[in-house]
């Protein structure tokens, strides 16, 4: 069987119907409120399949569900027992977008490295990914900037490109091949004309992006410590702390672990999706919270997506799906943050300078006269205050770092002796 085939659009429903009989089929469905969401489809006749819009929630929720049982436990005669839960059925994810597939590839790395996560990995190895690349980027999409779309050349099991009255079906991996071979009567080999048509569609789609988001420059600014620290305070006044950005983000994977009691003698250990945008995320027993302030949490999220992921996986963990842009009414989203970082880097505001100045004076590293002189000089040179001190030979970079670290770790109450 060739690796490129044609599926007539008329046959799509029949093909999906066959799949749904043997697998759990997940596909984008428009509901009666007009929202398109990935849903489990058991009867193709009762739903309206929507391949036009990008589903509001990412498909990664089917690999890492909102909540799942990690094991069951019971207590009998004072003894504490644990028992395994079994993996679930084989799943086909249909109607995925390239951005979402990239998100899955990132999650694969997260759950594979160090300790293997058996739940994610079992589910993943029993999942078939069918990509439907976007021919028409949506208003807030920027997968092209993120290097994750709109088309994929590998990673998918099958890729369905819409060519008007038919799909060009590309076979990527053995699981995809098996699916097509099983019902090969739906498919005919693709011609050169079909392949050319796909090529045109790719060029056309790539030219249509409304958003160009310079994730690389933003990542570099983070890595080189060139991001204006006052930005986070400013964003904190816009952020409502609802955590929606983390729930719609296809690469967010943080979770909480807790017990769900079933009775006096038994229960289950579950994990549920969690969000670094919420204050309780880092709170310790006893109350101390290393990321107490909303600005710290926003900062964390963007550092993670743009700098730390790059360090670890050699790419940012933003795939450009644009969901956070749509969900945040305070506009604390990837597009705006990246734009601001690219614009405002190195322009330290006077408020930040004063704050640093105060810390340095309080720790006795400089006198208030020296601060005054430096601030006056800074007004003409335009250098960041710290750089000004270093250039004038008053302080070393180390001393400034140490003073900041020292200051940061002193809580407001003196009553915490241990």
């Amino acid at each position, binding site marked *: 069987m060739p690796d490129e085939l044609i599926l007539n659009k008329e046959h799509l429903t029949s093909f999906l119907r066959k799949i749904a009989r043997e697998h759990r089929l997940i596909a984008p469905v428009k509901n009666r409120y007009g929202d398109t969401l990935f849903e489990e489809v058991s009867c193709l006749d009762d739903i309206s399949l929507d391949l036009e819009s990008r589903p509001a929630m990412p498909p990664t929720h089917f690999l890492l569900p909102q909540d799942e049982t990690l094991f069951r436990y019971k207590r009998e005669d004072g003894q*504490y027992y644990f028992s395994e839960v079994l993996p679930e059925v084989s799943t086909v994810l249909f109607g995925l977008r390239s951005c979402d597939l990239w998100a899955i590839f990132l999650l694969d790395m997260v759950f594979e490295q160090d300790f293997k996560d058996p739940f994610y*990995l079992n589910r993943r190895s029993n999942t078939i990914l069918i990509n439907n690349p976007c021919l028409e980027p949506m208003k807030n999409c920027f997968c092209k900037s993120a290097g994750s779309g709109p088309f994929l050349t590998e990673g998918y099991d099958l890729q369905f490109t819409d060519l008007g009255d038919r799909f060009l079906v590309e076979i990527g991996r053995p699981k995809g091949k098996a699916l097509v071979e099983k019902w090969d009567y739906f498919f005919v080999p693709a011609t050169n004309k079909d392949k050319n048509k796909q090529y045109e569609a790719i060029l056309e789609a790539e030219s249509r992006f409304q958003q160009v988001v310079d994730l690389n420059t933003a990542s570099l600014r983070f890595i080189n410590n060139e991001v204006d620290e006052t930005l986070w305070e400013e964003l904190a006044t816009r952020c409502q702390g609802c955590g929606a950005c983390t729930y719609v983000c296809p690469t967010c994977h943080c*979770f909480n*672990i807790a017990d769900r009691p079933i009775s006096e003698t038994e229960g289950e250990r579950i994990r549920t999706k969690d969000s670094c945008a919420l204050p309780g995320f880092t709170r*310790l027993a006893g109350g101390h919270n290393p990321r107490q302030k909303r600005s710290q949490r926003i900062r964390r999220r963007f*550092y993670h997506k743009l700098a730390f992921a790059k360090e670890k996986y050699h790419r940012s963990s933003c795939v450009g799906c644009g969901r956070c842009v749509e969900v945040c009414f305070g506009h604390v989203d990837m597009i705006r943050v990246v734009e601001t970082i690219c614009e405002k880097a190195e322009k330290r505001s006077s408020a930040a300078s004063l704050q640093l100045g105060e810390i340095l004076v309080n720790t006795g590293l400089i006198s208030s006269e020296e601060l005054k002189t430096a601030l006056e000089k800074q007004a003409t040179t335009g250098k960041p205050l710290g750089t000004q001190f270093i250039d004038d030979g008053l302080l070393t970079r180390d001393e400034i770092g140490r003073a*900041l670290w020292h200051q940061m770790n002193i809580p407001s109450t003196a009553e915490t002796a241990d």
Partner: protein
Amino acid sequence: MKDSAQTLVRDTAANVYQPYPASILEVKEETGDIKTFTLKFKDKEIQEGFTFRPGQFVLASLFNCGEAAFSICSSPTFSDYLQLSIKKVGLLTGEIHRYAEGDEIGLRGPYGNGFPLELLYGSNVLFVGGGIGLAPLRSLIQYLLSKRSEFGQITIFHGARTPGDIVFEKDLATWDKQEDVNVETTVYRSTPEWKGNVGPLTSLWEKATISPSNTKAIICGHPAIISYVFFDLLKMGFAEENIISTLERNMKCGVGKCGHCSIGSKLTCIHGPVFTYREMKELSSVS
């Protein structure tokens, strides 16, 4: 149910989230709100196979109550049990304080990097433990004392809120009796009976001769106090990589997945909880 035409691929990876049952052999009351639990895995093979480095931690499960991370406070040289010292501060710690000898809990681990033993051989070691922060240090102290000749001078500073809050009193006394170990204890708020030092941990510096060039400092305690300890050690001339601390973070999974214990680009459960001051300084700018 779907037709079973599809065979499911089963990854053979064990369930890293599932603990093993362990029995409480002994409960010792250290202070009004701290108890030390001596634990042993019920499965003999698991107990025998359980090895760790001082500074590593375990996740302890309580029936219908969830799970939390605790540093092991006993030395790996005691191989037929492990100990956890737990301060009552929240729901789970409150619950375990109601547990008694013979009760069962769940344990999984050990996790984290542990203390860098290879750096300590041949050096003097200064321990600074604030309150329950002495617990992870105790594991290392016991370990070093079991191989005493391989290390230099050992100094142990412990600070507590009040004399009643001093932990491991018996251990402190035993260690102090050893000729080549110097133990100093201080309290923040004194009582009429207390004859010892009064003042913060940092008031103990003058009680011992510390030579910054060939000493490694190992510190654990509340952030409010340890930042002062760092500052003083740096002023004394300690190199940043010779100041070592173990951090406490909200931990859920212990295996680098859940994201809770992230600090900068690192995860406390995988890359920590033990960091040098130099590493912490780099991480601190990104909390």
